[in-house]
């Protein structure tokens, strides 16, 4: 559905997007993840024909953004970082205006305005001025605006930024609800959001794609070896405990996290594919100490992300 090949965007003095390529299948929800200033917005603007790439090609639904921008624009619903609202319009009036811009009209537009107002939970404010709306409502009107012409592709630039937690949840639910009918690209720097909504993730840092994969694969790939948190009581000498743990088969590294009175906590890394938890527990108990905690420390997307973008920095 969306194909980006070797796209770069250069400005005098710096490169915002550097030779990125990725593809999005029809009906997928893809998270566009990266720190601020990574080039997410620039990439989205290239896809929406707001600006052309310096080099490379991008196409939406088989239409090139440079050659057939009108066809691309017809197929895309776009919510920029700040929703493009006219404060002096009423909500329904605004949605009608956008509908007309997208080439709709007459009865079908009127029906569609009611439909999207309902879908995006803005029906109760349809006769209110946009300037009087709360931020959450504005964001939802922005979403309604993006889907008014029932586009095949939805491009959402940080759809939850600046909202309060309740509004964030509502917006996420809304996006999840839209997922079936549209191909969605959404950018964010909030990681749990991607974990919740997206099937695939494209991680971008300093204008480059550093990883693109399904959510599952990505966390698995990055996890590599398992990390276990372990706390022991009853042995004031942490060195002895550490030595004992290191001797357990399959353990690659033991890191002392905390040693206080007779309590010490460790983080234990095991070799790939080895489950050492049972052995660790036995070792501790056999030594006569109390095992008070034993838990897997899973690697969150947050860590994956930091690891990926950090390695980019050091490279």
């Amino acid at each position, binding site marked *: 559905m969306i194909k980006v090949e070797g796209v770069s965007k250069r400005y005098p003095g710096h490169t915002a997007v550097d030779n990125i390529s990725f593809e999005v299948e029809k009906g997928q929800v893809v998270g566009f993840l990266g720190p601020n200033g990574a080039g997410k917005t620039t990439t989205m603007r290239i896809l929406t024909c707001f600006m*052309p790439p310096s080099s490379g090609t991008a196409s939406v639904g088989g239409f090139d953004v440079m050659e057939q921008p009108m066809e691309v624009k*017809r197929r895309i619903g776009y919510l920029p970082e700040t929703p*493009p*609202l006219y404060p002096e319009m009423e909500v329904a009036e605004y949605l009608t205006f956008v509908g007309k*811009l997208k080439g709709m009209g007459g009865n079908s537009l009127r029906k569609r305005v009611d439909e999207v107002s309902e879908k995006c939970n803005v029906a109760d404010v349809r006769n209110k001025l946009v300037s009087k709306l709360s931020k959450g409502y504005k964001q939802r009107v922005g979403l309604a605006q993006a889907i008014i012409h029932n586009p095949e592709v939805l491009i959402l630039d940080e759809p939850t930024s600046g909202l309060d937690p309740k509004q964030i949840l509502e917006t996420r639910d809304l996006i999840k609800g839209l997922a079936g009918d549209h191909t969605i690209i959404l950018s964010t720097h909030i990681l749990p959001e991607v974990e919740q909504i997206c099937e695939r993730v494209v991680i971008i840092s300093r204008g480059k794609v550093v990883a693109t994969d399904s959510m599952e694969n990505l966390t698995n790939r990055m996890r590599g070896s398992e990390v276990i948190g372990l706390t022991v009581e009853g042995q004031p000498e942490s060195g002895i405990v550490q030595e004992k743990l290191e001797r357990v088969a399959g353990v690659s590294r033991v890191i002392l996290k905390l040693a206080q009175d007779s309590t010490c906590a460790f983080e234990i890394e095991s070799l790939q594919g080895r489950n050492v938890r049972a052995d660790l527990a036995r070792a501790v108990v056999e030594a006569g100490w109390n095992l008070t905690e034993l838990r897997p420390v899973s690697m969150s997307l947050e860590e994956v992300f930091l690891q990926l973008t950090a390695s980019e920095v050091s490279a």
Partner: protein
Amino acid sequence: MNNILTIWQKEVKSYFVSPIAYALLTIYAVVSGFFSYVAVGYFLDRSIGAQAGRGGPMDVNEWVIRPVMMNVGVISLFLIPMITMRLFAEEKRSGTIELLITSPIRDYEIVLGKWLGALTMYACILSLTLVNLSVLFLFGSPDWRPVATSFLGMLLQGGCLLSIGCFISNTTKNQILAGAATFGVSLLMWTFDWFTGFKSDVWAKVLAYLSLTSHFEPFSKGVIDSKDVIFYVSVIALGLFLTTRSLESLRWRS
């Protein structure tokens, strides 16, 4: 065509739901009312002199309507930057320009729609002059034809300044800057023919030709000269063309 209409509608509406339209209409009504009153006052004063055997033939068209219309041009000079300054600058600042550009409409449709919206606003303001002039028709019988051509001339001249203002508004996010620059350019174009007062080389002639006032003169006398019409229409076209190109360039530069 539909798209132009959509944009035009939105523009006209946005003038009239905000205080801009009412403020401009009020300012214009007061100032042009005062100017008309003064013109009529002078005329009355002179007509008393004429009865006493001084002065030449009295003509309402020549002594009242023409000066009033020239003054309308001067007031427009101040009002037009206020009409055009928000056209693009506001959309750029608030980010709504992204909606327009990523919608399946062409750049020239956006520009034309906006310019027509501004022209409509300007025409509404101009029409207030008719109220002032109608008094003359109530108590006298001046020739209506020079009045009609003057209005046409004013609309064309306004159209020129509006298209220039449109272009300037598209070059900045800052409304005040857009307004100030438009005012400066308008004032210069208004006074270019002052050159001919003391210079007569080619430059003076070129600048005098570019002067908006010298092309308005014939209209105010009831003459529609094709060379003036062509001048105004080509300035309008140039302004709109430049606006369209700068809207395009926004994408390459931003």
